[in-house]
């Protein structure tokens, strides 16, 4: 597995997608920052709080940009072996198909972790530059915890995206799929059903914003079931699929 992970990392050397993902991960902190600059210009006396900046950025990352960005990264990692016609080489080495899949998921997890920490760091940096207020150890630890929990749970939700990529072997259905999910997140953001929709649950769990109508374990069961199902159908399909 170490060798597989090493080779997955090597494949990213000079890959433009890496830079693109950094730009994508910077989008949410920059959008929030620009919003605060605008507010500051209109209401100069009202200070911007670090806690608010972290919370709002995490909301955008987990419900909007992250879903799309991590979906595209998932598609890139799995689809490039088809697009660059390298899968048949790997499978005739031979690399066991499930181990190949797991190594890519591991890399995806590390990549998402890195982007999550990058987003958090960018909020901190922009906040320091712009003079946000209320920075404390508590705010730092709480916000990092929220970002990491949100990122980790978003990772769990990449398995259905992986399945769509493996099934269609094309970026377009994956992008449509993640766009539809993002629309779902937006539609349910203020509804109590957000605690049941697997892709909006990461934000619910990260911020502890459960609703009284549904017990918390509904959310945990929903996200774990969809994640495991996504992994299982991907594994079965990938193991059995002919490589043309």
């Amino acid at each position, binding site marked *: 597995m170490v060798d597989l992970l090493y080779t997955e990392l090597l494949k990213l050397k000079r890959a433009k997608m890496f830079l693109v993902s950094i730009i994508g991960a910077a989008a949410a902190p920059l959008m929030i920052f620009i919003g605060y600059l605008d507010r500051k210009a209109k209401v100069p006396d009202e200070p911007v709080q670090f806690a608010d900046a972290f919370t709002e950025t995490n909301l955008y990352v987990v419900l909007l940009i992250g879903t799309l960005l991590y979906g595209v990264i998932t598609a890139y990692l799995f689809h490039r072996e088809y697009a660059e016609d*390298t899968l048949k*080489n790997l499978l005739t080495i*031979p690399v066991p198909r499930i181990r190949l899949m797991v190594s890519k998921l591991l890399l995806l997890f590390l990549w998402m972790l890195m982007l999550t920490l990058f987003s958090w760091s960018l909020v901190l940096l922009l906040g320091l530059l712009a003079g946000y207020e209320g920075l404390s150890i508590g705010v730092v630890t709480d916000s990092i915890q929220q970002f990491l929990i949100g990122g980790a749970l978003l990772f769990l939700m990449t398995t259905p995206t992986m399945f769509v990529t493996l099934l269609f072997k094309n970026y377009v259905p994956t992008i449509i799929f993640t766009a539809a999910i993002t629309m779902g997140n937006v539609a349910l953001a203020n509804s109590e059903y957000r605690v049941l929709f697997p892709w909006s649950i990461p934000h619910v769990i990260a911020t502890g914003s459960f609703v009284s109508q549904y017990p918390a374990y509904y959310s945990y069961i929903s996200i774990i079931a969809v994640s495991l199902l996504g992994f299982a159908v991907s594994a079965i399909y990938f193991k059995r699929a002919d490589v043309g």
Partner: protein
Amino acid sequence: MSTVIKTTGLTKSYGDYKAVDSLDLNVGLGQIYGFLGQNGAGKTTTIRMLLGLIKPTSGDIELFGDSLRGKQKELLKRIGSIVEFSGFYENLTARENLMINARLMGVHKASALSEALEIVGLHQETKKLVGNYSLGMKQRLGIARAILHHPELLILDEPTNGLDPVGIKEIRRLIRSLADERKMTILISSHILSEVEQLADQVGILHQGRLLEEISLAELMKRNRTYMEFQVSNENKAALLLEQQFGIADYEVRGDGSLRIYSHLGQQGNLNRVFVQEGLEVTKMAISGETLEDYFVRLIGGGTIG
């Protein structure tokens, strides 16, 4: 001679369409086996089944005397392959691409990469990214990747596809040297007759998923260089006489009274006498040669090859 590849009744169906139909293939140790057929004949499908990339609908595959089922991992480690065009990570150099295979195959010897690149003449392209390689360079790199771990069997699917004549010659030289110097058994598929003719010891001819013939090149050349040609007044009656009186089945009615007979060479006198006795007018009788290309076209029932 022991058998390196043996397939029995190997079949791959897609619905009602049989891409490969009851294939019995035998590749002996140390041979260069030319797997010849038109585009769409089923060569790549067969090779993909041999490499475990697609699952046969029915039939068995034995590699090195062991069934591929259950031993795929061990058996594939003894094989190097190129399936159609070689795919590479274009953002990496040749060495980095080979490094991926080396790590995953457990090839830890640092010199292995340099050695493989040197064999294919790419050892000086240290900085160039594979995305900037020509097709010929990529095919050579594909061979370097296939031989990196010193396989006993090399399976090359159309390795000269898309190459210019110089590139084709270079790849051919490379394949010949691997067989001669490294004693590898090589299965090379091609739709180009001249390529197979110049490389192979044994030839398997595939058409519409079926193996029409498996024969040594020497035997093929010997058998198909000569035939008797008759020009008669009624070719259908002549054909009937050939079958009934001489038991000849290996002949061809070419129309306009012309017949080609591929067996019973040397009996043209007897044939001529019987034709005349049965009232046929014989206006031409000749011993002629057939090119290998003519033979293949005849074998596959028309169309073109190469």
